[in-house]
């Protein structure tokens, strides 16, 4: 997908316009402070990418992602974080409950994932307060993800 984008300047230009329009729409809602503080779409994308690289390297939990379609995971996670932070997106993936069903995620797995997210954000130099606000928006997902 990224390869195709690179070879198709008109499409990239169209996407760029869409992103700008999307950004404007988000600002108009006035509740996208966290999205903006994370750096908008590029900032959220950078967090997700750094996070995924850390997950892939973490022997405690990377077995959970062995069968995962990484591109889809990336895109849906960007969408989810964008929506949760008040950005101009609508999460189109499955529910947290359905996504994690049967994976047997326990507290240790969940904590390890959060730790990777925190390390990813710290590595990107994201301010403590912004990190905390994102964690606060993600924390309610805990109940639907933990299975045992």
């Amino acid at each position, binding site marked *: 997908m990224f390869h195709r984008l690179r070879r198709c300047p008109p499409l990239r230009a169209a996407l760029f316009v869409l992103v700008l329009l999307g950004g404007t729409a988000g600002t108009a809602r006035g509740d996208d402070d966290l999205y903006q503080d994370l750096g908008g779409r590029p900032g959220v994308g950078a967090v997700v990418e750094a996070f995924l690289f850390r997950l892939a390297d973490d022997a405690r939990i990377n077995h959970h992602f062995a069968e995962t379609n990484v591109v889809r995971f990336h895109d849906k996670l960007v969408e989810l974080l964008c929506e949760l932070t008040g950005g101009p997106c609508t999460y189109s993936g499955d529910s947290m409950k359905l996504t994690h069903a049967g994976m047997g995620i326990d507290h*240790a797995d969940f904590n390890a994932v959060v*730790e990777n997210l925190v390390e990813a954000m710290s590595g990107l130099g994201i301010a403590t*307060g912004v990190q905390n606000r994102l964690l606060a928006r993600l*924390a309610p997902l805990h109940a639907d993800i933990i299975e*045992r």
Partner: protein
Amino acid sequence: MSGGRRPRAASLGGVFVAVLLAASASGAIERLAAGSRLLATGGGTQVEGQAGGGIVPWAVMAGYGSSGEVGASAFYTHVELDDYALDALGVAVSVDNRIEFSLARQQLDLGTLGDALGLPDKSLRQDILGLKLRVAGDLIYGGLPQIAAGLQFKRHLDFGIPAAVGAVRRRDADFFLAASKLWLAGPFDRNVFANATLRYTRANQGGLLGFGGDRDDSRDVMFEGAVGVFLNRHVAVGFEYRQQPDNLRFSDQDAWMDAFVGVFPSKHVSLVAAWASLGTVATLDGQQGWYLSLEVAF
């Protein structure tokens, strides 16, 4: 009997710190993979050897073990007051972030009082066996705070002075219920936490002056609390309060308090520095001073 005891225990503390620092510096602790719980979620080690703040046991578990993991910690604490000094050291193990076992020794150096009265013992020691069970909730997630029930079995080793000032029991148990909660992105987008502990006790000065007394030999419910804020994920500042019973006729007993800074460079080592006020201790009033606690954990 006098004199010899204090140097032995103090040097034991020194050896313990040396071992902790050597283990930390050599990377031996780092090679023990830390548990999955987030940084600082085990708090420090309170002065009786259980995971908590400085003077209050919290509902959190020692070390970093999450579900299916084992956590552990070792600590050394020194408190330097106007007329006394307190050393405490010990170890704690937690299993499954569910149950915590701890063992600690405290030694109170009588300093001024010992010299002035020519007391037979220059210091008072007690051993504390701790047990804590997380019964409900979670520190961070869900609506309930993390709730734990705990015990501290205490055995005094130098009971002569406590008996002379009216203490009735050489050994006893404290029972407590603790609730701890951390709120993400509280005021100023900082993570803030609070802990409330109810302790059923008749310990005089935490047991260093024995248990029960000539004024009152029954246990009472005492309130203990802590509040704090993480400035970032490595540094927390806060305040603690610990109410005390009043069982001895010879001296009133005041609440203990401390204001602390906890520094967590990694899951393997942390340092808590505090200013502490213990009020009147064995007739000497206004006892204040500094508190320093080193912990290694995984």
